[in-house]
């Protein structure tokens, strides 16, 4: 069923090859009103938000307020392996269309509900948005600037929905793995709030283990005590990240040679400490954090990297560092990464024909490359109700589930 919380999970399953039919109300689901729009013309079939989260699905429009719509919904559920929905708790039950209404006759059915706080929580009936969920679940607390007069930050890209969505896909596939060996389906209850909660890495662990609170910092991990800056503005004004500075003598030598190559040795007094670091055969800052010389060498390595970064365009710094086996990074914008020669070489740009617009649109490609059962965009995102007649004619009145042979034969 079309939803905000479940849309990404449905797309993941569709692009793994499932026949995903997205059920929408008459006129189309409200997320079709989310822009941006193709050509900036607002229209339910031109929503790029809809496109992004609904590629590879087919669309069926059903009016669940009416008897016919409910009958057709029962037909679809009756034939499905999996139901994935993000409805407010109670809405489907009121219509007699909830998991409990089907579980008796369809014990092998997998039914995944994605809500803000889980089906049993009263908070799941309240309105939530990506922003308020990022705030409530603790993700936003982790992101922001050294300057704490600026607020914590969420990220662009509807990550609360994507975090909940990927967990819905994981849990659904877990239930499927169990059904493959047992023939038994079940209900899967996914909470977006819980999903955000377990997606803060050290934010949670620091508190659970040591009762400490991570504080946000610019361009690097939130930490209890301020840590060294790692994000640097390169010579062309774009940003790079020096990462965690290297500690081995060979890396110090590489860095010295790079400074020489660029004619930067003279302007970099930290060279002195790099040379000491080489004489010492490298450092171990985690072990020797109370040795002032080790700390000075560690800081000098970072300063030397910053010195190189500020004298080179961002891409030259990033590729130059990595070619020297130094683990540095670059802050690409999404479109820069998308057009980058590495991503292009791996086929990440996927052309999808939008014949209704007479054009081909490039989509982001596979999150992972699978050798035998490849990920793929099966079809462009559906127009409102494009496949209603097709699917209702095609899906039988009765189960057509795809249990593996050993389960069908009663083994396993």
């Amino acid at each position: 069923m079309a939803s905000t919380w479940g849309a990404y999970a449905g797309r993941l399953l569709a692009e793994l090859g499932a026949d995903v039919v997205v059920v929408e109300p008459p006129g189309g689901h409200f997320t079709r009103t989310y822009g941006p729009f193709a050509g900036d013309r607002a229209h339910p079939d031109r929503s790029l938000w809809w496109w992004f989260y609904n590629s590879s699905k087919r669309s069926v429009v059903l009016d669940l307020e009416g008897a016919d719509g409910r009958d057709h919904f029962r037909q679809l559920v009756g034939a499905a392996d999996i139901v994935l929905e993000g409805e407010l708790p109670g809405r489907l039950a009121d219509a007699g269309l909830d998991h409990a209404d089907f579980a008796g006759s369809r014990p092998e059915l997998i039914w995944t509900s994605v809500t803000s706080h889980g089906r049993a929580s009263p908070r799941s009936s309240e309105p939530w948005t990506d922003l308020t969920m990022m705030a409530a679940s603790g993700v936003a607390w982790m992101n922001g600037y050294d300057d704490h007069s600026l607020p914590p930050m969420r990220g662009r890209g509807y990550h609360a929905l994507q975090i909940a969505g990927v967990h819905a896909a994981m849990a659904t596939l877990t239930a499927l793995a169990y059904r493959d060996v047992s023939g038994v389906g079940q209900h899967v209850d996914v909470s977006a709030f819980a999903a955000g909660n377990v997606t803060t890495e050290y934010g949670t662990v620091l508190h659970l283990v040591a009762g400490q609170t991570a504080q946000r910092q610019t361009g690097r991990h939130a930490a209890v005590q301020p840590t060294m800056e790692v994000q640097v503005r390169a010579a062309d004004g774009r940003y790079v990240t020096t990462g965690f500075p290297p500690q081995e003598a060979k890396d110090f030598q590489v860095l010295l040679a790079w400074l020489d190559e660029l004619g930067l040795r003279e302007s970099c007094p930290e060279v002195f400490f790099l040379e000491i670091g080489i004489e010492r055969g490298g450092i171990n800052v985690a072990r020797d954090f109370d040795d002032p010389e080790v700390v000075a060498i560690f800081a000098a390595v970072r300063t030397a990297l910053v010195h190189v970064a500020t004298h080179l365009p961002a891409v030259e710094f990033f590729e130059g560092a990595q070619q020297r086996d130094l683990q540095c990074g670059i802050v690409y914008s999404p479109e820069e990464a998308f057009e980058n020669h590495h991503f292009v070489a791996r086929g990440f740009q996927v052309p999808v024909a939008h014949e209704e617009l007479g054009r081909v649109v490039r989509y982001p490609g596979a999150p992972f490359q699978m050798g035998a059962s490849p990920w793929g965009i099966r079809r462009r995102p559906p127009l409102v109700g494009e496949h209603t007649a097709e699917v209702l004619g095609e899906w039988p009145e009765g189960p057509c589930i795809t249990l593996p042979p050993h389960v069908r034969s009663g083994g396993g």
Partner: protein
Amino acid sequence: MTPTSRSNRGGRRREAGAGPTALGHLTICDLSGQLAGAGATRYLAAFGARVIRVEDPVRQGRWDIIRGVMPHVDERRGIELGGGFNNHNVEKLGVTINLRSERGKDLLRRLVEVSDVVTENFAAGVMARMGFSYEDLRSIREDIIYVSNSGFGHSGPYSTYKTFGPVVQAACGLTFGVGAPDAAPAGWGFSYMDHMGANLMVVALLAAVAHRNRTGEGQWVDMSCTEAGLGLTGPDLLDYTVNDRPLRRPGRPDSNHSDQPPMAPHGIYPTCEEDRWVAIACRDDRDWAAFAGVCGEPWVAEPGYTTVAGRLAGEADIDRYVAGWTSGRSRRAVAGALSAAGVPAAAVALPEDRIDHDADSDAWGLYPLAHHPEIGSVRVDGVPAHLSETDWHIERGAPLLGQHNREVFCELIGLGEDEFSALAREGVF
């Protein structure tokens, strides 16, 4: 409530040994680590998969940089005492194998023979150089599922580049998307792509299991964490490919505002408490009217603000007014009053708010207690999904180095006592 008084509610629907597990039929030979790999196999282990974590005895498992490092529960330090490692490796078995030796490689081959899946997140090429490419693994077990998670994947110009979470999320466009307008990127204050990489690794792995169940065929999954991350940048990327509108443009990323769907006010605002914040999202004119009713300050009566277009045009002013209003109140008071009026609003939760003082986290059993032989009992991350028939269960902490050598090598693989002792003497594990 102290950690030890907390019941292990994550497993409330399935106590240990009570009823079937979802993934108890799967054995995972797990060479992965940190969070990007370990986070994936921890999920499988919580649903009952037999996850056997293989570590290097020579370096005491230090390839996983999280092993032994902070945070710690007390003043003790050591390779077994890292709090993050314990969190990321619950419910796994731990073995050690020295893969520099031929005997060690033989032992790993015997482990692969009895495994459904091999997982790893080394830099590209490491496994092949050790003699465990997909073709090698397949020659050991024809239907093996082999899942690799690396920064840039196993092909392409950047395939040899080395990464960790912050480098991955910077290179794939995610870091760029977090920040104030026209400012330096704020980025993610944690390894977001370690989490999402691990999550997508689970999706790929279970999809491969489903494929094997239907065809008998195994496969190799080459996951590039940067590609996985670029796929999470959302509709902004299509705005570029369809409308030629790059995200690197003036006024962006402005990530606390909502370009789409257009909402105003929409942001994170200060409160009367130092560095405490509240998020507010007025989705439409009805939310605005409700907000205006709760706020009640004179400025909300500005006629231009009754439409979303008008509010967007005056967004800078509105943000200032809203901040002025919230600055005199606590985050809970603002969030409570607006939520009660039907306007999406939430306090920006500190870890203690959502972990220790939240009815939903409690009811969910979101932070179960795990027991580690040396660290002791400590709460860990739970799983944000409950399965009605085969729910997850987390009770056992991370394994000690080689803790389960005997159990795995003798009982699972079938080494005899003499062979086990001989290999131990030779330093194979």
